[in-house]
């Protein structure tokens, strides 16, 4: 981020470290799941991509690849998760699909890359979307935490796809939920701190 050089010690490095940890965990899940056709694999791939991209946005030294490539990645991700969310709503009725949250995250990533690369005529704040996106991400984080603690009183789950195979030993609900919360908080901070 443009403010990384002037921020006090540790803040963006700390957040970058956390999202890289999420990316590493997601990479482990992807490797373990290769060949098993495990539902939810797209979520882990998405976490991996977001973690790598976010780390590069927060700490310039960690950035790699052209911005256009990341825009294509998250554009495709957005379309994929929108389709998954629609399919889930048609199958299960009104509820909060986890894929909808990932569509929101993909949109946020796309917007951040789009405005940072100069393709947009004004910055992220000028688009007026940073606040609602950040707020919706925070809502998703709170709902994840509440659901994990059985404090969520409404219908639905943050995972809307039944598993076709038994979960691996690495798939701990606490780590899965923590990954989501970390990514939501990191992206909210990036959205609200952007110029």
């Amino acid at each position: 981020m443009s403010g990384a050089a002037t921020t006090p010690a540790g803040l963006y490095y700390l957040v970058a470290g956390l999202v890289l940890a999420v990316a590493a965990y997601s990479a482990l899940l992807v490797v373990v799941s290769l060949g098993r056709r495990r539902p939810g694999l797209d979520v882990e791939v998405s976490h991996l991509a977001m973690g790598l991209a976010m780390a590069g946005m927060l700490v310039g030294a960690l950035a790699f690849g052209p911005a256009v490539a990341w825009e294509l990645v998250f554009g495709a991700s957005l379309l994929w998760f929108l389709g998954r969310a629609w399919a889930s709503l048609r199958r299960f009725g009104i509820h909060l699909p986890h894929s909808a949250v990932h569509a929101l995250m993909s949109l946020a990533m796309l917007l951040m890359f789009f405005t940072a690369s100069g393709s947009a005529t004004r910055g992220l704040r000028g688009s007026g979307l940073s606040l609602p996106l950040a707020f919706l991400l925070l809502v998703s984080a709170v709902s994840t935490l509440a659901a994990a603690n059985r404090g969520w009183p409404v219908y639905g789950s943050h995972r809307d796809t039944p598993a076709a195979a038994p979960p691996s030993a690495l798939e701990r609900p606490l780590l899965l939920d923590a990954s989501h919360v970390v990514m939501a908080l990191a992206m909210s901070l990036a959205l609200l701190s952007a110029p």
Partner: protein
Amino acid sequence: MELDRATGPRAACTGVALAAELGPDLQRLAQLALATLWLLDAVLQAEPSMFTGGAGGFSSMLAAGAAGNPTPVAWSISWAAGVVAHWPVLSNSAFVLVQLVIALGLTRRRTLRPALLLSVAWSLVVWWFGEGLGGVLVGAASPLGGGPGSVLFYALAAVLLWPCPGADAPFVAARALGVRAARGVWLGTWLVLAVLSAAGAARYPGLLRGLVQGVEPGEPGWLLAIDHLSTAVLQQEGTWVTVGLALLCLLVGASVYAGPLPTKLGTAAAALAFLIIWVFVQDLGGILAGGATDPNSGPLVVLLALLYWPLRETDGARHRAPVVPG
């Protein structure tokens, strides 16, 4: 939370199945909305500029709150600003941590009560040292600008959302305090807002215009256009706006005693009015300009209004015992 493979997402765990029978717990939903607002505050507090000292940093924001207050109050605020200026990273990290703890605590039933208590205490601390008592003692605590202090609404919401078993009807706020006390709190709150709207310097167009102009720099173009409109209206009709707001506050406060329909009209008017204020005067709390630590009073007042929305006994809010986690 894992998925029930047989029945899909609608009954993923016992807690959700029980809730499905009883209908949504509106008090719990409101608590989670409050948690989201606290989480937003924590993220805003974690912006880079908040960790810097000197002019333009968080300490200068705190120091500005001392102006006009009585000497003891001003001295205490200046002292706090000095501490923050001396240790900007450490102090702001603590502020972020407190707000994170409150937000995360509100999402768990086991930590809900301590989190609510902490939020009340923290709100009072912020009201004194962060908002300079909301400008109440300065005579410039207009509700248009967030008076008597936006953070006080967090404390009020915490009290109204104290967890209690029982029905959400006749309105959510009654669940914690009972109907009579909750109505009294509502009336008292809106009486205070009415007085602050009409008293002191709040009705002078120059001060009102400054409320809008004070949050202009750095905001997106569409919001600046709204600011220009608001500035013009307040400059020309500011006194009528404040008088109208005061009358509205009085009517809203009394509406809870007049029956379900007037209450619905009152709470809806309150929510709509403060939504308009939040956009046209408070500029979404200045969040889009950067440097804001909270969204101001608009969203909180809307939440409070929803807590008083009349509910029928048959609106799914049957008597429920608190859900015990684990």
